[in-house]
């Protein structure tokens, strides 16, 4: 009898153990996290500034109407849902009951004001949205304050009207620049920013009124990592809890992208560009120099489209001359050395120009090597963003436009594949590898994640006591 009771108790304990353990070690409120970033945003207002720091602060302090799910499709955020009418040309978004950090409720008027601000920002997604919304192009160009394609029927709904029925028209609203802010600039994100030390640190406290519920953490402090600092030693010393680095939480969210300038020799010839693409073996690059990377599918947006093996195979050749190469500082040096080695093997004399991630795209060099992540991790928008960096041929442009206008998801994906392959075949955009975006955390930090866009998500992060 006693033995049976003991066995039963043991079995119960074994069954309940994980639950109990989970109850003991599961998410808990409280605690603080210090995140080290290489750069801090210049302002707290939502903008189109790229960079790890800017993306993190945007995720912590702001909320958008629309998000992107794991499949790369728009998902509700501040907007509870949406419906279409007029053959897909009219989209009505309904807002959740949410509040800003200053306590004011989020209204349709705030959303509309934020969309107007967004449409006039330098964001590519905003340009894309403005192209489709009625009167959007003129509004964006500053030719008037009238925006016929945006209406606010009531405090909880906003209506967007498009000239033509687009495919996934709401995707641009997932951009951080499209975050909804209050009249005084207050955000609606999970954390409330305190007074920042410009360029050095920013403290944010948990917002109990967040639309997704109060975050677990009481406080997040974002600090700038000193130049040349070692992330492992910074974490080991306890100065920071999370920072870019590996091993840690990661996601294949970035593309190691080589962009050749087709307007300048020696890359003004397609054959030369193809020879460059042929010379660089991404597989070797990933296998040996980029741990966790993936080069098997040479896609421009490998994280957003499954590989299909489309596209032409580049023809090897020889390229002579001199070229300058701007290399983004977030590219692993050994990877850039490999690229340079390949280019040198081709016959080129390469001069490397290190650049910051924010300026590498504008560098006046023959080529640029960078870790690229889309502004909005939606395949069509990402390809459009890439195409905007080059001057694709009319055929490629047409292919892309057709893909973006496709409303049927399956057909849309197929068209996007063809557009992506066409874009690649011009050999201006040379994807070398899919690269993980990783964040190293100290032991005891849980719940942190990396989204499709490679941004650190701390909404559900918690720390052990």
């Amino acid at each position: 009898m006693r033995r049976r009771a003991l066995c039963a108790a043991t079995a119960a304990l074994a069954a309940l153990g994980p639950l109990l353990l989970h109850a003991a070690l599961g998410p808990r409120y409280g605690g603080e996290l210090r995140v080290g970033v290489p750069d801090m945003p210049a302002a707290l207002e939502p903008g189109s500034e790229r960079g790890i720091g800017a993306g993190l602060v945007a995720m912590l302090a702001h909320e958008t109407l629309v998000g992107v799910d794991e499949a790369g499709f728009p998902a509700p955020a501040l907007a509870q849902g949406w419906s279409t009418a007029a053959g897909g040309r009219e989209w009505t978004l309904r807002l959740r009951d949410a509040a800003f950090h200053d306590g004011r409720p989020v209204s349709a008027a705030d959303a509309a004001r934020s969309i107007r601000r967004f449409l006039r920002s330098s964001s590519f997604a905003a340009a894309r949205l403005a192209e489709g919304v009625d009167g959007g192009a003129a509004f964006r160009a500053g030719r008037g304050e009238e925006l016929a394609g945006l209406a606010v029927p009531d405090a909880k709904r906003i209506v967007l009207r498009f000239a033509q029925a687009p495919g996934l028209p709401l995707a641009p609203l997932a951009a951080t620049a499209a975050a909804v802010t209050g009249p005084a600039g207050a955000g609606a994100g999970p954390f409330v920013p305190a007074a920042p030390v410009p360029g050095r640190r920013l403290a944010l406290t948990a917002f109990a009124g967040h639309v997704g519920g109060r975050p677990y953490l009481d406080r997040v402090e974002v600090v700038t990592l000193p130049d040349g600092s070692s992330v492992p030693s910074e974490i080991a010393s306890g100065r920071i809890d999370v920072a870019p680095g590996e091993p840690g939480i990661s996601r294949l969210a970035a593309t190691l992208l080589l962009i050749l300038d087709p307007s300048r020799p020696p890359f003004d010839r397609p054959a030369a560009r193809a020879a460059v693409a042929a010379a660089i073996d991404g597989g070797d690059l990933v296998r040996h120099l980029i741990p966790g990377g993936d080069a098997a599918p040479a896609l421009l947006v490998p994280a957003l489209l499954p590989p299909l093996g489309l596209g032409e195979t580049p023809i090897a050749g020889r390229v002579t001359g001199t070229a300058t190469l701007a290399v983004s500082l977030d590219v692993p040096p050994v990877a850039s050395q490999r690229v340079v080695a390949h280019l040198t093997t081709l016959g080129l004399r390469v001069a490397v120009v290190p650049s910051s991630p924010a300026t590498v795209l504008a560098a006046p060099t023959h080529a640029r090597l960078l870790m690229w992540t889309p502004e909005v991790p939606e395949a069509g928008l990402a390809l459009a963003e890439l195409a905007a960096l080059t001057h694709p041929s009319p055929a490629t442009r047409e292919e892309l436009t057709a893909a973006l206008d496709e409303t049927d998801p399956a057909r849309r994906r197929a068209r996007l594949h063809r557009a992506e392959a066409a874009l690649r075949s011009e050999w201006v955009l040379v994807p070398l590898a899919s690269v993980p975006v990783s964040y190293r955390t100290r032991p005891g930090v849980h719940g942190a994640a990396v989204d499709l866009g490679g941004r650190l998500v701390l909404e559900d992060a918690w720390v052990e006591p």
Partner: protein
Amino acid sequence: MTGGLRGRLLAAFVLVAVPPLLLLTAAVTALLARSFAQSGDERLRDALAAALGQVDRQMKRAEAEVDSVAAELPDRRPDTDLPHLALRIGQNHALPALEIVSAAGRVVSSRHWLAGFNLSEQDGLFPGDETLRVERVGEGYGEAERLAVMASRPSTLNGDPVVVRGGTFIDAEFLAEMSGLTGVRLGLRDRRRQRWIAPPSSPLLAWSEPALSGQDARGEVALGGTAYRFAAVARNPDLWLVAALPRGELDRLTGLVRGLAFAFAAAALVGAVLAAVLLSGRIARPVRELAEQSRRVAAGDPGAAVAAPAGDEVGELARAFNAMTAELRTSRERLLQTERVAAWREMARRLAHELKNPLFPIQLSIETLRRAWDEPGGRERFAALFRESSDTVLDELQSLRRIIEEFSEFARMPRPELKPVDVAAVVEQVLALYQARAAGVRIEKDLAPGLGTVRADRALLARALGNLVANALEAMPEDGTLRVRAAPAEDGVVIEVADTGPGLDAEQRTRLFTPYYTTKKGGTGLGLAIVQGIVSDHAGRIEARSAPGEGTTFSLYLPRDPASVVSSPPVRERPA
């Protein structure tokens, strides 16, 4: 004279001291400069030897390690991470440069060129030198070329033939380290690629076209505005190891030595001058003193004596001088005594002569009176003789009285009371006084302007002039010309009294100023002696110039201030 002696002594000291010092300084400086230059060249040679020696040592070590790697490589189990294989092996064997190259010339794995795996090796080579290679290395976000000394050994990896190469970089870092150790700027000149391998701050980087030929070279070159001595040695025809030392160091040392030497020479010169001044003073002082005392002796001071330093020639001279002055004093005393005696004798003789003249008529008159009294019947003649004889006696007594008065006056000549006296006024006064006695004589007066005053006793001066004027008038009883001239002369005045009388012969001129010598009938012979005495008391001098038939001229030289004259020389008689 003293200034001249001191100057000559000074010049002699300087000439004796300075040229040898300067020559010595120049010689020492030149020797030291050459020594420093040689020392600099030795440093350069030593630095080159040290650097080359270090390269050889690195090479030997590399050979040993590569031997070890090549030996162990075949036994390694198959490695899936080939690109990092060389990194791990290189870390284990402390080989900064290590690569494994396939038989086809592809890099299987490279520690220093991690990104170069599977690529064709593109090392730069130096013809004929298997140990030196220009390796491609990953640097920053790109790649670079670095010179390395490498050993090569064949081996196998996973059953495939490979070549293992390993070694050390001979790069800017290595050269900076060697430069720090040797204190010499080191650099490598790759003539094949026309470039320097040197630390970023090395001045050699500014040397665009070094002229290096043969097996070694040396010389000087200006780099960045600074002069350098350099030495170079060829590691192979295309790679030279160059060592350079700024001349500034040598020049600074040489300059320092030169400066010290010149400072020493300057100090020695100053010392020589000081010594010359002191010594010349010490030598010249006794000479100066001798000269001073000689002047005193010449001026008539018999008490001159100089200190006689013992032992040297100057002392001997001083002692001789002192003996001479002592003898002179003695002789002068004797002479003075003799002169005094002679003067007294002469005066007694003259006085006796003068006194005897009046005494004879007196005696004769008395005797005549006695004879007349004593002769019978002579009483009537006695009365007649008494008046005549008494007249004669009274006349002669009068002469005697006059002689005695003049003698007394000459003997008690007063000391002059010196005050500023207008010379022209005195001359005018005297001439006015004797104008009446110059009956047929024309008086010519020539008083130069600006005579001024002299310190003199006015009365005595007037008396002296009066005596001269009186003598001149007496020499021209009938007619003639009396010329009186006064003019400034020699820090004083000269007064000339000239007559056109009969003049004086040689004997008369020699005895002119002797007391009681006279050429005049009835003269006492004391007039000119009195004049001479007065002139002497005024520290002046009197000269007489005369010849028979040509008249006589007396010249009086009177100083402005008798006290400024040490002594007046005796009267000189100048021939006419």
